[in-house]
């Protein structure tokens, strides 16, 4: 990439002058568009499933909450699931983002380089832990701990509406699901923010030190503004992963077809991805399968939008910083 302009023109000329190269060129170009083909395929094949779902349910498929397939006429609405996905991802963000940010500040500015390198390896390993293992751990280890925390939250902060719990049942709450998502997001967000903060030019840091800034002032006025775009993008990448997470949430969230608006430590919530897996096992027929596929389409649409925005932000800041 030393001389991209010159390179591109010459390579193009070389590529079209030889018959074998023309074939090679076409094959490689075709392969490069597989990503587009798959995305378009997902959009089309899941998109057409939305039509029969809307024909039977109308817009209430998106705006109502319920799943009564065996009644006549059957009713189904995924609003509670869509909202629930956002709610638990939001809880995950609230818990995970400060931890990830502080963790990357520790890795970049506070920890000795050797400690930082070892911790980074562990965080990469954490990012690689399969979600089914996270679910297994959350079901048996985290769950009992989370019961205690939730009871304490309810006991001392129960006067705040979001910490109300009238049933006394602290199992399968959005809080636990959000906590599991936070654990998933922490390594993803940390790896992006760590890189962004690490790219802060040492001149700027030294200059702020020379002006008498404390570390907090340096972070507040130099490092964080410098990496703001990348940090926001990293958080959104984590959000995209959290919205699509299926199996880890499956074990800790009790799916109820009743919109749980803000009672985060009350049993029961929703998640589109988990709905698909939990209903698929006992799917009653082509009609219900169609509804699940339609729900999958909206999940795809939501995560696609979040990811595209996140990637645009990360790519743009990456370019600005270079």
């Amino acid at each position, binding site marked *: 990439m030393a001389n991209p302009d010159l390179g591109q023109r010459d390579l193009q000329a070389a590529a079209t002058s030889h018959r074998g190269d023309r074939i090679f060129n076409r094959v490689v170009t075709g392969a490069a568009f597989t990503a587009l083909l798959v995305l378009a395929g997902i959009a089309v094949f899941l998109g057409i499933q939305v039509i029969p779902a809307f024909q039977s349910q109308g817009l209430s498929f998106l705006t109502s909450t319920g799943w009564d397939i065996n009644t006549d006429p059957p009713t189904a609405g995924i609003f509670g699931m869509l909202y629930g996905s956002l709610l638990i991802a939001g809880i995950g963000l609230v818990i995970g983002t400060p931890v990830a940010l502080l963790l990357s500040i*520790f890795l970049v500015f506070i920890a000795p380089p050797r400690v930082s390198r070892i911790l980074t390896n562990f965080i990469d390993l954490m990012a690689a832990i399969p979600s089914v293992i996270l679910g297994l751990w959350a079901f048996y280890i985290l769950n009992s701990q989370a019961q205690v925390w939730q009871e304490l939250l309810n006991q001392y902060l129960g006067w705040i509406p979001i910490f109300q719990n009238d049933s006394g049942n602290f199992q399968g709450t959005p809080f636990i699901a959000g906590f599991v998502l936070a654990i998933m997001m922490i390594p993803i967000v940390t790896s992006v923010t760590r890189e962004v903060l690490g790219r802060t030019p040492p001149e700027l840091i030294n200059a702020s030190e020379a002006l008498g800034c404390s570390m907090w002032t340096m972070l507040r006025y130099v490092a964080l503004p410098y990496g703001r775009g990348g940090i926001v993008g990293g958080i959104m990448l984590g959000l995209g992963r959290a919205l699509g997470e299926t199996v880890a949430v499956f074990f800790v969230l009790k799916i109820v077809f009743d919109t749980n608006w803000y009672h985060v430590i009350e049993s029961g919530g929703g998640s589109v991805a988990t709905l698909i897996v939990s209903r698929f096992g006992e799917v009653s027929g082509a009609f219900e399968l169609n509804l699940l596929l339609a729900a999958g389409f909206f999940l795809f649409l939501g995560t696609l939008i979040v990811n595209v925005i996140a990637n645009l932000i990360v790519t743009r800041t990456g370019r600005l910083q270079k």
Partner: protein
Amino acid sequence: MTTHTEVFDESRLVELREQLPIRPWRSKPRRFTWSVIIASLAPAVFVGLLYVFADIPGALLLVAVYLPVQIFASGLAAYVTRGTRGIADSVIIVNAIGATVFTGIILASLLGSLIIRGWAALSAHFIFQNNVYINPSTPLEYGGIGHAILGTFLIVLISAVIAVPIGIATAVYITEVRGRAVPYVRFFVQAMSGVPSVVAGLFILTTLVVTGALSQSALAGGLAYAILMLPTVARTAEEVLKLVPEELRTGALALGSTRSRTVFRVVLPAAKTGIITAIILGIARVIGETAPLLLAAGNADQTVVNPTGSPISSIPTYIFNNVALPYPDAVTRAWGAALVLIVLVAVLFTLARVIGARKPGR
């Protein structure tokens, strides 16, 4: 800067250059170290005494007592040594260390519970036997995950055979062919990396399984995995191919090599270790994915080697099916399978690190 350098003599300039990497915010006076030690010990002792002598729940004590006391003590220490400016610093340092410890505890709990609980299930027959004639209540002396390990290998192999050539070709398009569509291809690959795994499974389910083209099988599961693997391979391979020196390409072309021969004989061999890293990272990305296999590959108790035709089990789906069963032995099997899976992932990552650490172009 450069206009003033003549003022200094040469040796001074060298000295200044060597000073640059020194980070002034790291140097701390001795009084600072002592106050840090006192400020970190005192709250711990205080809260430890409270824990022993007062009847306050541990979680509450940590969050509502220890953290504020620790922040206050550190703030005080910072005020004594560095004045008001130090307070904000001490708050952020305490919180940063707190966040690190929090993450460390979670990771330690995860890995620790996997090893402790999974170890009980591990044995030679657990690795090699299959799940036929095994009920959830069958004791641990019988049965194993051999069929699931084989299934995972088969499915990952199929997905690698599909996704690796396409992924590398995508990277070659971006770095070697450099057509007009490069920014778009990059954009689509990035967008594809965000596809949720359950959606990949649904896509294969609705296009191939529901239409009857394929039954739930290793091939269907492998295709779903390939959707997830492709972006990882393509992006990593792109990074690696970018590192191949431009001189190698122009040199090969100048010697009369065709474009395709340059790629196959010069560029890809030069980036060989990096390409292998890309493949390993792609495999590590998918090997633990559960949702696509639940939808596309199904489940089986017997050992399956036929890649089409019949449902097949895999390690993640095996764990999934055993987690919530009310039988302790079934749950122990799930922990054992999880330990096997995490060891596989860790081995793959270490391999990628070791191979990736070698320099490209050798």
